[in-house]
Structure formats: C-alpha cells, structure tokens
C-alpha cells in the first residue's frame, strides 16, 4: 500500500487522527503537512525534497492535541523518535512511524524494536559534504577554528530557527528564555551569539541525532549543525554510544557507571 492509500486507511479507520508528512509548497518544494481527514490523504507526497525532520513536531502541544499521529518516517525521523523515547518525551504508542520501502510501499514500524531494526540497515547519517567540513575544521589550529566560528556566528541574528527546527529542543522553557536570572545575553552581539551556540551544542552533546535540520533552517546559512555534530561525535568517541540508535539509551553526560574507566569520578 502506498503512502496516500495507507494514510487514507488509517484516517478512515480512526487508527490515527492525523498523518504528518509532506505536501507540495512554494515552487512545488515539499513542506511539512498534516492530513487530518481521509479527504486530505491524497495531498501527501514523498520522495526528493522531503527532507525535514518531522519529529520536531511531535512534542508540540497543538500537535499532541490532534490525537494519535502517524508520521512519514525517514531515517532521521526514526532516530529522533527513538531518542525522544529514550528521553521519555514520547511513548511507543503515541506515534506510528510510516517508513517507505524501495518500491514506495508503507512499512508500519509500530514498535521501538521495529524502528531500531529498520534503522540498523541505514548508512552513516552524516553526508560526505558535512564529513569533509568536519574534517577540515578538525585539521584547523585552534586559532583558525576560532576565527572560522567568529566569522560565521557574526551573522547570527538569534532568530532561533536552529532551536525551533531541532527535534531534541523540546523544552517548554529554554535556558535562552530564562530572564530571572538572565543566563545568556539576549542581544545577538558577539558574546550573546557565542554563548547561545556554545550552550546549544553542549546541550545536544550525546543527544544530537545528526539530522542537520538546524543548519538547513538557518536563514543566513551558518553551518550550526557542525557544532552539534562535533559534540555528538565526541560523545560517541568517548562513550561509544550514539543518540537515536535505541529507545533505551542512558544519557552519557548524566549517567554514572561503577565500572567507569576514569578514576576521577569515583
């Protein structure tokens, strides 16, 4: 059954109240869309350009109020959903991921186990281009890297599109929005921008599912995803675990193991 047929069936049967997928938008480019009745199932599309991480919607209150949701599940959506489960933000039964096989037929991944198994077949999420950029940054001296990020972040206007597009940035009340006390300067001057992006990447270390949507969302083209990718890969190198691989993942930066190889922590 293809996506449109499956969406229609699920909505008609009342198995889900909405199917989150994509529809053609401006210039025909796909954009996120909610089919909220069987009559809307036909407008969903899949294929090239359906790249956004739809998991960023599933923790939003107005979306939760729609009822049970089926979501078109590309690998990055699955990684984000698993990580949201690991962080106890959603439960297995809240969302029905719909993956597409090579022939465009829907595969329902109703359990976390099914999602994990499906994902295990997927290649490394980081694109060749991003891998090259990360390698280039890695080869830079500290001074060069500092200059690179100072230049890039000088363009930041603090629109928070990176935060808003991130499936793991689900906090109701973000540290950036705390003003009693004000932890991080609000204005988008050099210090305000630097602190914001440092906090964001540290907060996503060990949690970033490497979808890259923050970088795609940035209106001024700052490759902010490289910051969180780097933090994520550092955690992977140090602790051997990858965010989004499993619904049962202890957060590396807040987990103690008695057999920890480091002595300072004992």
């Amino acid at each position: 059954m293809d996506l449109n047929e499956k969406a229609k069936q699920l909505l008609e049967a009342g198995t889900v109240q909405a199917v989150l997928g994509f529809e053609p938008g401006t210039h025909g480019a796909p954009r996120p869309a909610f089919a909220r009745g069987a009559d809307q199932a036909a407008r969903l599309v899949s294929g090239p350009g359906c790249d956004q991480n739809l998991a960023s919607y599933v923790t939003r209150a107005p979306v939760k109020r729609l009822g049970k949701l089926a979501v078109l599940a590309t690998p990055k959506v699955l990684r984000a959903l698993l990580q949201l489960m690991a962080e106890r933000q959603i439960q297995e039964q809240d969302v029905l991921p719909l993956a597409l096989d090579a022939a465009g037929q829907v595969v329902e991944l109703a359990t976390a186990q099914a999602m994990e198994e499906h994902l295990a077949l997927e290649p490394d999420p980081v694109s060749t281009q991003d891998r090259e950029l990360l390698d280039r940054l890695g080869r830079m001296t500290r001074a060069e890297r500092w200059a690179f990020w100072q230049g890039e972040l000088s363009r930041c206007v603090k629109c928070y599109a990176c935060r808003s597009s991130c499936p793991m940035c689900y906090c109701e009340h973000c540290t950036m929005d705390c003003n009693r006390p004000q932890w991080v300067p609000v204005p988008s001057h050099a210090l305000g921008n630097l602190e914001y992006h440092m906090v964001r990447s540290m907060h996503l270390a060990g949690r970033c599912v490497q979808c890259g949507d923050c970088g795609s969302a940035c209106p001024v083209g700052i490759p902010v995803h490289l910051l969180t990718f780097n933090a994520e890969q550092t955690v992977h190198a140090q602790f051997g675990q990858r965010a989004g691989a499993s619904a049962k993942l202890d957060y590396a930066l807040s987990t103690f193991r008695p057999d920890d190889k480091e002595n300072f922590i004992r």
Partner: protein
Amino acid sequence: MADTYQLSSASLDALFTAIQGDGRRILAPTDRDGRTELNPVRNPGEVARDYIQTTMSAKAAVFPKVEQLLSYTLAKGQVDLVDPEPQAVPTVVFGIRPCEAGGFAALDAVFNWDTRDKFFNARLDQLAVIAVGCTRRDEACFCTSVGGGPGSVKGSDILLTPWSEGFLAEVLTDKGRALQALAPKGFIPAPAVDKAALLVDVPAAFDQPALTAKLPALFDAELWGNQALRCIGCGACAFVCPTCVCFDLQEEADGQSGRRLRSWDSCGHSLFTLHASGHNPRANQGARWRQRVYHKFSYYPDRYGMLGCVGCGKCTRACPVDMNLQEHLLEAARS
C-alpha cells in the same frame, strides 16, 4: 515629478567613485560564500548580477540588530549616565528592490510615532537609497497586491530601471539630486521610454483593502491556528523583514556599570508577550501567527494609514517550513 535620465554602466562606475569620494559607504547585494546579502562595495562590478532579493533586508542600515542606547557607571552613590550621540555612517544603499525601499516608511511610522527616535533618525538622515527595478520575480513576490510594483518609486531617492542603454534613472528626491550632483555628467536626459515594458509583470493576487476590512471579523477564526500548525515559532520571518520593527530592550549590568541595548525581537517568539505574572496573552503559535498578519494588514492601516508589508516575500523565502505569507493571506481573503 521625477527627472528621468539615462545612466550608462560607465557613468554608474563614476557615480560609485564620486559617492565614495564624498565620504559615504555603499552597501549593495553581493554574492559571497553562496549568499546574496548587502555588503560594502567599492565599484559596480562587485554588485551581484542575478538576484531577486537579498535574504536579509536593508533595515539594518537604520535599525541594526543590536545597538547601545545608553550606558552608566555607579560610584559612591552617584550614577554617571552616558547618553551617546548616534554614530551614523553616511551610507548609500544600492540595488535593493522597490518593495524594500518602500519599507523604510513603515519603520519611520513606528520610530517617529510619538517620541522621535534619535538613533533611527540619525541613520535615516545619513541614508540615501538607489533602488533597482525588477526584471524578474518569483512565487514569493506580491508587491502589486500591497500597493507597490516592480517599478514603484516609493522610498527611493533614485530608482534605476535596467535598460539596453544601461539604466533609466529617475531622480526622485533632494537626496537623489544631491547624489546626481556628485557625478552630474553621467545623467543624460532620457528619451521617452515605456518603463513598464522594461519591468517584470507582477499581477495583483488579492484585494488588499477588502482583506483589511475583513480581518477584524476573522479574529476568532480557526484559520489562524490551522495555518500555524506548521509554524515552528522561530523569528526568521521577522528578522529578514524590511518592515518588522519590534525590538527588545536589555540591560547588561553588573554592580558597577551597565549598558542598555536595543535588539530585534519577533512576535513569533513565545517570550515576546510573556508577562511577569506568567500569563501569556498570546499563549499559542496560532495567536502569534495571527498577530503577525494583523499587525501588518489591520493594525498598521488603522494606526498609521499604511500597510506593514511591502510584499517583498523575504519571509516566505527564509521560512524553514514555508509559511508562505501570500498564500495564507489568500486563504484568509477567500474564507
């Protein structure tokens, strides 16, 4: 009535040189690192050739993303207040589109609403605009639905229209005439030319006065919440907008000294209307999205007799989830 001239490419070179000789910087769209944005340029050769719009607007030239309004030091019970004079750099913005040139009036309406804002006015006084009319458009453009057009002269000091002879130059204001006077030889009286034929056709998409009249009755419609379901609540639309004027005031202080900063803010952010009590009168994204539309298409006409939107489409292009403004206005107009 504008004086109309022809301006060759070589004469534009001379004009750029003369402007800089007069001690002014020129900001123009450039293609750097794959992005078309306003940057300082020395000569017309640096100006981007093939662009519809820059991503960011020219408003930063008069309303920067962060600026210091005052500073102070505290010592022995005394407050020493420094009330800085604005540092306005004489600037010519070249190559923005007529829609965006028209956007300065919407900023002016707020910054000179009651108190005259000295920072904004100092920059505006030192700014001249040479806009370039549009020979191309895209799906996000809707200037003609909001009173503008690809050859609209509103807000420009000189409007250039690309032409086989270089440019058709309309010198529109005293500031424009002052620029012309810097390199007068290049401005040759133009023969009668059909300007509209040189420009792209942008058919009007909706009846804006009818929409504005309709909005008060639509305030409680479900439409806004439904439209906003896709909105992720970032501020990209507001920050690229040439007319979005909302700002935040922040005090950065320690025990001995402090400074007050003004920075861009957005009604799309949940914190924007959060009260100290914890109550938020715009508690959800639907209410915030509605505010964006109403401020531009209902409250601005009510309060200032003009729209808070010039139809440039920057918001639509910058939106990570394609909250196409024209499309949503059309939906409201048809509902």
